[in-house]
């Protein structure tokens, strides 16, 4: 219905606010996927290492959460887009 209204108004489907919202959504989605991907790789390796030596839990944990920063930056970026 929203799309229908936009067509009826014969304006662009996405106005500036819509583009902004999409941009913000992309920022968080793509970085979220990137973090997940990176953490998956590290997490698998970390668990493999822990199977050999349980003492590596701390280091494994740290290495696994390192890519979390990517999505945090994505969140910051999307907040910045939203508030600009």
């Amino acid at each position, binding site marked *: 219905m929203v799309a229908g209204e936009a067509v009826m108004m014969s304006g662009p489907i996405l106005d500036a606010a819509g583009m902004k919202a999409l941009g913000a959504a992309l920022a968080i989605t793509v970085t979220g996927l990137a973090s997940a991907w990176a953490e998956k790789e590290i997490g698998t390796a970390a668990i493999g290492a822990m199977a050999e030596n349980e003492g590596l839990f701390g280091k494994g*944990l*740290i290495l696994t959460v*390192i890519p*979390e920063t990517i999505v945090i930056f994505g969140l910051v970026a999307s907040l910045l887009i939203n508030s600009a």
Partner: protein
Amino acid sequence: MSRPKVMTRAVIVGHKSILKQTIEALYDTNLFHIEDFVEDESGFKIDKPFENAGDISKKLVKIRSIANYLGTTSNEPVVQKTGTVLRELDSNLDELDRGISEKTESIIKFQNELKDLDSQKKELLPFLSINLDFDYFRGYESIKVFAGTIKGSLEESQISSITKAFELYVDPQSKSIVLFVANADADRVYELIQGLGFRELRIPERGGVPSETLRLIEQKEAEVSRKIESTKAGIDSMKSKYADFLLASDEILSIESEKAELPLKIATSANAFIIDGWTPSEDYDTVVSAVNSATAGKAYISKLEIEEEEEEHVPVEYNNSKVAAPMQQIMDLYSRPKYTEIDPSSVLLLTFPLIYGMILGDIGYALILGVLALAVKKAVKSEAVQPLMDILIYCQISTFIFGIIYGEFMGFSLASLHTAHGTIPGLIPGWETIVLFPGLSGEEVTFPVHRTHMIMTMIGATVTVGLLHLNLGFLLGFSNIARHHGFMHGLLEKGSWIIIEIGVLIAAIGLLGGNSILTYVGAAVFLIAVLMLLKGEGIQGVVELPSLMGNALSYSRIIAVGLSSIYIASTVNDIAFEMIWPDHSQIGFAAIAAIIVFILGHGLNTVLSIIAPGLHALRLQYVEFFGKFYSGGGVIYNPFGFIRKYTEE
């Protein structure tokens, strides 16, 4: 900001005749970390274990396998006298060993009997409703007996067309038949039933009427099952009788075996021994007097100077107050500090709960988790759990304080907030939000701080906290380096980072304030600091420069993770009290459903509230903070000795 305990290297030399006494004395003090001897050209060799070592190991293996079989655990250890346990050891062990093998053997025997009975029962079942004595099935000269199952149905008329001399029993349900015919007709009858898919069944060897036999078998089965149960009960009673003995003897023999195997770790010659190791300096006198009194002064003990290159390998024992001690758990999860560096446990005592509280910041969750942690601390006396609960309690204190600052309770806002879109009421009527001063990008800083309404300001604030935290790290790093390599090194390697930040700050103030001189000054300070860094850490340091910004921005996770926790909580509240139960005056099904959703939702969020803020607070310490000063990898101080739990001398 404590340092590890100061250690003393000591060497104990003596004649082999006093080796046993020396080992006993060292073991009892539990203060001497023994360095393993590596054979070299000195002519000293490691020795053989004491004679009793083999015997002890054998018994230990037996005890452990029995304990493993019985699954002995003791929640309230009964402390026993070593002498008594040792005196009864052999006889108890024999009795246990014999008792258990007897009982397991008879259990296996009974189980086989059960299996046997079961197969007898299965053979019997097809003949049950025919109920003909099995003795009638055999022993004929001129009669052939067909006993088995068929697929279709068999009528008497079908057989009577072949022969008149027959006797047929059919059980239509199990499709089993018993058919008696004269030998002469047997082949033709067999052909007939073969066409109906006849399959012969084995006739049970034992005679008697099937229903009667079945009753007997079932009786026997019940009897055997009872015997198994009673044997198992016997094992259980052995378990409860000997549990304490097993734990105590395991402990005693472990101690004895450790003592007996010590000669494998020390340097010996034909007649002498050398034990080399470490003890905290404050305990040196205790060790000396213990060894002297055990050997009547025949052992020679002396201190050795610690050389600088040796310092890396000195075993490290924490030296923290009781309050900061739980944080050692967090340190050990990462890595034990080196002997030469600062032990940051007491810094963590402040920064870890601070960041955790900043993330979670909710009075309701602080109370729930605080009570939970206290309860677990009371209930579980394990040494692994206690410090973790202490840490959780510290974190909840901080969460409570930030809960007041944020004015949050289970995702509800406590104070009412006036916004452009109207007033959002708070949970506590009459508590109004006060505007303090303007924040970033048009937001206002208020008390209580409404995190969801001042995100940009909070990002700025958390990054500032991050910069402070990082600079604390640089200061600790400076102190570590300055202590060992002099002030200049410290300044070039770690101080330069702080000066870089100052330069950027001056330049930024100049740019924003339109003061070009200040900008140039800032840029100059920045350049000088980069050159200092280049000299201090080399090109690596300069390459690392942008990571400073990454590290500082990483602290924005404090607000990011915090927001996710608030949104989960307030969504749960919305679902429960706005969607399911909007009419708060009516008590009915909706009210119960709302309460269930409320409890489950917040239960989930409570679990997340330990994991998410905990992990992120931990990561900020490990990655961002420790990266600035900490190397770790110290040798863990592990004194030769044992803390007895189940026994005493």
